[in-house]
């Protein structure tokens, strides 16, 4: 990864690629083509059943194509991905096209054998190219996913935005030590759905009266699913990578205690801001022997509220009386604040030390301010 792509204070923890066997589903499609091509060649040329195919030169191609398409349909239904069927259909149609174009009608079994091997090799190369286009960069701040042969796709997810981690390891993954990790974002990126459909037809009746019924049903299941370039697909070593990602997510997600601390500190800051304002006003108004404004809870007219946003509503009171009551209020607030600070210090977490120190500094400043007043 180019250093320019990194953010400020970002460090690369690990750069990963999918394991060579992690795209076995795609490789299996190629393996089936090659195996079936060899079987058809042997069956129609060398086996004891070769005589069955001698009647018509097209029989081997028909057998090869039908089984190929049937397997394509089954695989598509199982994988819920019709691309497989259309891929096999393309292979079959290309074979027919080539036979007509080059006039290989008399050598169809041999053509099937060679064509199957050639198609499989091309398939393997494409899968390998696709695999190599993937790159996953795990940094201390985020995970960057990259992939795609022609269209380059990229996804970045920050650890604090990861809501859930889905991890899976198949049989091959368990044997070779690779697995897939899907970080599901808070917005639901990384979640998909599997749909299954069932349908059936019934024909009842004799030669004249026919009744045809059709029944269908569907089911949708939410499941963590993502494209290979949007997940850590087939990464090796799986356990180490999973641990690393989980540690990084953990270090970026605030715990309940931390959240409470942050909330408490926000309250403290609010109170201290108010106190500062009051102290400042108190110090500046002390020499005067005039009527001073005292905060009260009574409602006033809207014009006054707009004029003074953050300062509480005030009422004209005699100077000495107002000064004393202000002092009492401030001291009361200070006591409350100190109480809260003490309760927060009972079990201070190590991570929060810095923040606490800051809070303490602020308190000290307030205390100094109090002494000054």
């Amino acid at each position, binding site marked *: 990864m180019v250093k320019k792509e990194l953010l400020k204070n970002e460090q690369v923890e690990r750069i990963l690629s999918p394991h060579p066997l992690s795209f076995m589903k795609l490789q299996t499609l190629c393996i089936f083509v090659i*195996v079936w091509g*060899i*079987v058809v060649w*042997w069956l129609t040329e*060398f*086996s004891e059943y070769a005589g069955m195919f001698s009647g018509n030169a097209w029989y081997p191609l028909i057998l090869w194509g039908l089984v190929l398409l049937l397997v394509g349909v089954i695989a598509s239904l199982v994988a819920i991905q019709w691309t497989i069927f259309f891929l096999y259909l393309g292979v079959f149609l290309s074979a027919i096209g080539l036979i007509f174009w080059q006039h290989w009608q008399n050598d169809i079994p041999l053509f099937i054998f060679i064509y199957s091997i050639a198609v499989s090799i091309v398939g393997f190369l494409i899968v390998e190219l696709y695999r190599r286009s993937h790159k996953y960069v795990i940094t201390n701040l985020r995970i960057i996913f990259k992939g795609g042969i022609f269209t380059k796709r990229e996804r970045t997810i920050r650890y604090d935005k990861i809501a859930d981690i889905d991890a899976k390891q198949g*049989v091959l993954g*368990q*044997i*070779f*030590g690779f697995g897939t990790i899907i970080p599901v974002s808070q917005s639901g990126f990384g979640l998909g759905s599997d749909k299954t459909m069932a349908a059936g037809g019934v024909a009842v009746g004799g030669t004249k009266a026919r009744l045809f019924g059709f029944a269908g049903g569907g089911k949708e299941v939410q499941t963590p699913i993502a494209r290979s370039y949007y997940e850590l697909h087939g990464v090796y070593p799986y356990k180490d990578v999973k641990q690393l990602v989980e540690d990084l997510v953990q270090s970026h997600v605030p715990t309940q205690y931390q959240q409470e601390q942050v909330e408490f500190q926000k309250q403290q800051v609010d109170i201290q801001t108010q106190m500062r304002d009051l102290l400042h006003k108190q110090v500046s108004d002390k020499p005067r022997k005039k009527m001073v404004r005292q905060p009260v809870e009574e409602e006033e007219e809207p014009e006054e509220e707009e004029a003074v946003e953050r300062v509480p509503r005030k009422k004209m009171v005699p100077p000495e009386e107002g000064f004393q009551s202000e002092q009492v209020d401030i001291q009361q607030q200070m006591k409350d604040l100190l109480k809260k600070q003490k309760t927060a210090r009972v079990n201070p977490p190590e991570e929060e030390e810095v923040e606490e120190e800051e809070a303490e500094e602020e308190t000290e400043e307030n205390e100094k301010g109090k002494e000054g007043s």
Partner: protein
Amino acid sequence: MADFPLNIDVVVIAALAPILGVTVFWFLQLIFIEIQKRLLSRLRHHHEAFCRFTNYIGIFFQTICQALGYTVTRSGISSFQVTVNYGKVEPKKEKEGVFEWIVRSFLLFGPFFIPAGLVLLVSYGVIGRGFSFPSLVHYTFVESLTGFWASLSTYGTEFVRFLINIDLLNPLHVGFVFVLLFFGLGIRPSYIGQERKEKIDILHDLIHIKDHLLEKPLYLLVIVLLLYLFYILSLFLNPAVYIGLFVIFGWMSLTAIIAILLTYPLLLLIWATDAIQPQWKIVPFITIPVSYIGSRVFFIYYPTNELERVSLLVMFLSTILVTIALIKYKRTNRFKTATKMKHVRVADGKKGTSKK
């Protein structure tokens, strides 16, 4: 109804003959399994993934056997999990007593026979003639044992004949070899761990089985009595039925032994290639198909009646020769790091250790 003489040999001792035969073959199977385990243990360090794969097959069958036990006892299966490290089956209903004992029996004995039984079914397609049951004239211990042995030897001979004449250009035959290798690597009940442990020892399995059988002697006695009853019934009805039952178990053991034996050359080849330089390691494995296909092509122009057999021999010999040659001339340098460090020290002009 069969006519048989009433003497101790016919009424009691003859019943033990097939049991003895099965036990002998099962012990042989155990010994071959033990050798395989030790070979795999040696490979573990360099071929972690391969050992995990074999573990997976073994654990898979073991778990299947346990699940079968729960199914037979009508306990039901609530969860079924197989990984490379362990298998886990949980019943719907926890049954105790005889049911628990049966499940445990399936777990202990199943891995020895159930995978072998599956191979036996597959092998029926390629060596159908070898499956012949004994036909006895007299029910004596010797006759029973002879009948048992005759059935097994016929099957074994046919199996070996098939393997010697196997046509590796026939996809069905190649598929069968793969099935044999696959099951051969999994016909063992123990997990091969990262370090050598007692639990992979043959004694470990035997002690477990002994403890299991002696734990409930009453159940064992009931099984023996049932078998004896079956024997007595077979004396009256069909004399070959009783031995036939044990012959099936004998076939299973024999199939397992052949499958395990077939894995030895593969394991030895993997072990031998560890001594070869990494870039040359693949050559012995490539030699296998290349030499066989080359030999078959050669015999197209110079035909012979022993085409498959000679080609197989050529394949084995050329693979062995290539492997030996590579071990001799392309041996991996195990002290590469030490040599380099020595060079570094000489270049630095320091006699002590290299810089840390």
